[in-house]
């Protein structure tokens, strides 16, 4: 019998899911799979905090406070101001560092090095015109060294890139995966993504296996003033070591304007983003699925620590029969998804997420139609490592899913008298260690336990992933 797992993550920030119908008539192998590209950004985005500032309460935090206490007694001490500024920057307290350095200019304005540092700090705060003001002062100073001029040019280039209305961001993850029950899915629905995500799911072969994968997201934004056009291209490729029939490749693009209702900043009521999407999936080196659709996402902060988001999305999916799934066209469907999530920063360096989504898959054949409910909870905690460790932060993110699926009808070829109902527990943990500002090492362990009223659809799987993530 077949385990037919179809997992949906709907666009923009919210996870959704659907579990599937029974095996279409004529399915030729034990694993009927469906590869799903979707939008919901979990793993990469939730832990994309490489190079984060040091959280409060750490040893460095205490060091900054101690230096400040010394400054209160000796505020004109140049060396002390520099040491305080350096420590404050490490702590992410750029305003404190700016205050110390600007204090030095109160006594001596002919200090191009200090002004250059101030320009760098204001750049990190995204206060670009203030940074430019200091750079202008540096360049107008007499006897500026060639090295300083080179740093000024580099910083001006950085500011020009940052202030350009057109911006790109790239997230790439590459790694190896071991599954106790090999499938086409990367590691549950929250493994590969990057602003816009993908979920590949789910072939259960009941055999262990290895694969190498590469996933990534190219995000582009174009600022038109009150409206930003946001576009994403998501790619994924998985090469199985033993089962080439489930080698998979996928690409999805989506694009749409984002705008605020009720003004910007604190007065904002909600941020909306309607979007259109299209995707293409290959399985076992054959074209397998294309889809097109549209959606609407909305998000807004509730308090300083709580934010909420929601979405609705529709996709039209068209399958192609392939050797592994000769009746895949039975799954041609229109899929409606709706969901929401809450994000709560419960600690200075800890964030709790709760997501709920519901998907209605109206397939061409009734036994391939189903409804699915997904509830997901996760927590991400950032640990600052000792400075001598030379890396960090370390972000640990446990995650727990509960997934329910109800098919619309029994599959006459599989279990003609039983309408499939499945329940899944999925739990695991992701660890990510920042190596540089742009590079992180990742590890992911997840366990899936799928129960069903059809015995053959029951399965367990443990996945272990190690990889590297590059963000730029």
């Amino acid at each position: 019998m077949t385990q037919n797992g179809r997992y949906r993550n709907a666009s923009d920030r919210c996870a959704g899911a659907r579990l599937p119908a029974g095996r279409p008539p004529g399915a030729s192998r034990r694993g009927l799979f469906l590869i799903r590209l979707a939008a919901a950004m979990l793993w990469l985005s939730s832990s994309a905090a490489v190079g984060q500032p040091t959280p409060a309460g750490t040893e460095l935090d205490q060091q900054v406070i101690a230096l400040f206490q010394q400054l209160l007694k000796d505020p004109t001490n140049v060396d002390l101001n520099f040491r305080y500024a350096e420590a404050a920057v490490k702590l992410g307290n750029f305003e404190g560092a700016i205050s110390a350095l600007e204090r030095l200019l109160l006594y001596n304005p002919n200090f191009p090095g200090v002004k250059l540092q101030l320009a760098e700090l204001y750049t990190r705060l995204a206060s670009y015109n203030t940074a430019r003001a200091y750079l202008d002062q540096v360049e107008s100073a007499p006897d500026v060294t060639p090295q300083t001029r080179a740093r000024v040019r580099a910083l001006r280039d950085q500011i020009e890139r940052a202030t350009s209305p057109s911006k790109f961001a790239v997230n790439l993850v590459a790694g190896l995966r071991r599954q106790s029950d090999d499938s086409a899915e990367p590691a549950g629905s929250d493994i590969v993504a990057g602003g816009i995500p993908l979920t590949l799911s789910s072939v259960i072969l009941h055999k262990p296996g290895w694969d190498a994968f590469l996933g990534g997201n190219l995000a582009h934004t174009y600022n038109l003033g009150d409206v930003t056009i946001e576009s994403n291209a998501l790619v994924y490729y998985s090469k199985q070591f033993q089962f080439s029939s489930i080698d998979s490749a996928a690409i999805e693009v989506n694009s749409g304007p984002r705008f605020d209702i009720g003004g910007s900043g604190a007065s904002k009521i909600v941020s909306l983003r309607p979007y259109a999407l299209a995707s293409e999936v290959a399985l076992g080196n054959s074209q397998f699925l294309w889809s097109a659709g549209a959606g609407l996402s909305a998000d807004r902060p509730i308090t300083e620590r709580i934010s909420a988001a929601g979405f609705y999305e529709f996709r039209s999916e068209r399958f192609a029969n392939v050797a592994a799934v000769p009746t895949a066209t039975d799954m041609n469907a229109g899929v409606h998804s709706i969901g929401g999530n809450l994000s709560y920063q419960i600690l200075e360096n800890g964030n709790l997420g709760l997501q709920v989504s519901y998907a209605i898959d109206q397939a061409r054949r009734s036994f391939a139609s189903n409804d699915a409910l997904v509830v997901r909870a996760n927590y991400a905690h950032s640990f600052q490592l000792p400075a001598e460790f030379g890396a960090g932060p370390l972000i640990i993110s446990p995650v727990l899913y509960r997934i329910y699926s109800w098919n619309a009808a029994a599959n006459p070829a599989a279990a003609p008298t039983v309408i499939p109902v499945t329940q899944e527990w999925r739990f695991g943990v992701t660890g990510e260690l920042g190596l540089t500002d742009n590079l992180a090492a990742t590890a992911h362990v997840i366990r899936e336990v799928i129960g069903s009223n059809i015995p053959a659809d029951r399965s367990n799987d443990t996945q272990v992933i190690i990889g590297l993530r590059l963000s730029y």
Partner: protein
Amino acid sequence: MAGMGVANVAATAADRSSRELLVAHDSMRDERIDTRDRGQVQLLFADQSSLSLAPGSDVVINEFLYDPQTQTGNLIATVTTGLLRYVGGEISKKKDVAFYTPSAVVSVRGGIILIKAEGDARLGQGGGGKTEVLFLSGDRMCVTANGQSQCTTKFATAITSERGESPSAPVPVTAETIQVLLSNLQADDGGTD
């Protein structure tokens, strides 16, 4: 609260009495800092915030309270005239800090602002009572006058308020404008070091 009581420490820079730095301890109330006859001054507050005053400024610290244990407190100041830069600390991360000027009330959450205020004394000469506030960084800045408020979250924007009128909408300011104001908050060329 520890360290109650006014505690101003004048730390004179080298031989330039005009470059003065006032260190505020945990509490400060109704302290007037007048640089109309002197040069620049910076106040360093216990919450790691600072207030820099250009020459020709007159500011009263109506209230500064800070509890280091909870990292909360309050800062209210009145800017009668002149130019100042406020760099936020722990207090402004948690609540708005307020500055009263002759024509408006400025509140800022986090971040860094520049306030340029014209005093009442110029009213008789026309053009007095104008306040221009530049938002350089932070969460948000609001200017309230004549019963109306204008807020901004965009860096390098300014809100202007004339006495008796509502504040303007935020408008972008250039690096050149910022540089002129920053120069007024630095020592004259030929500093002491």
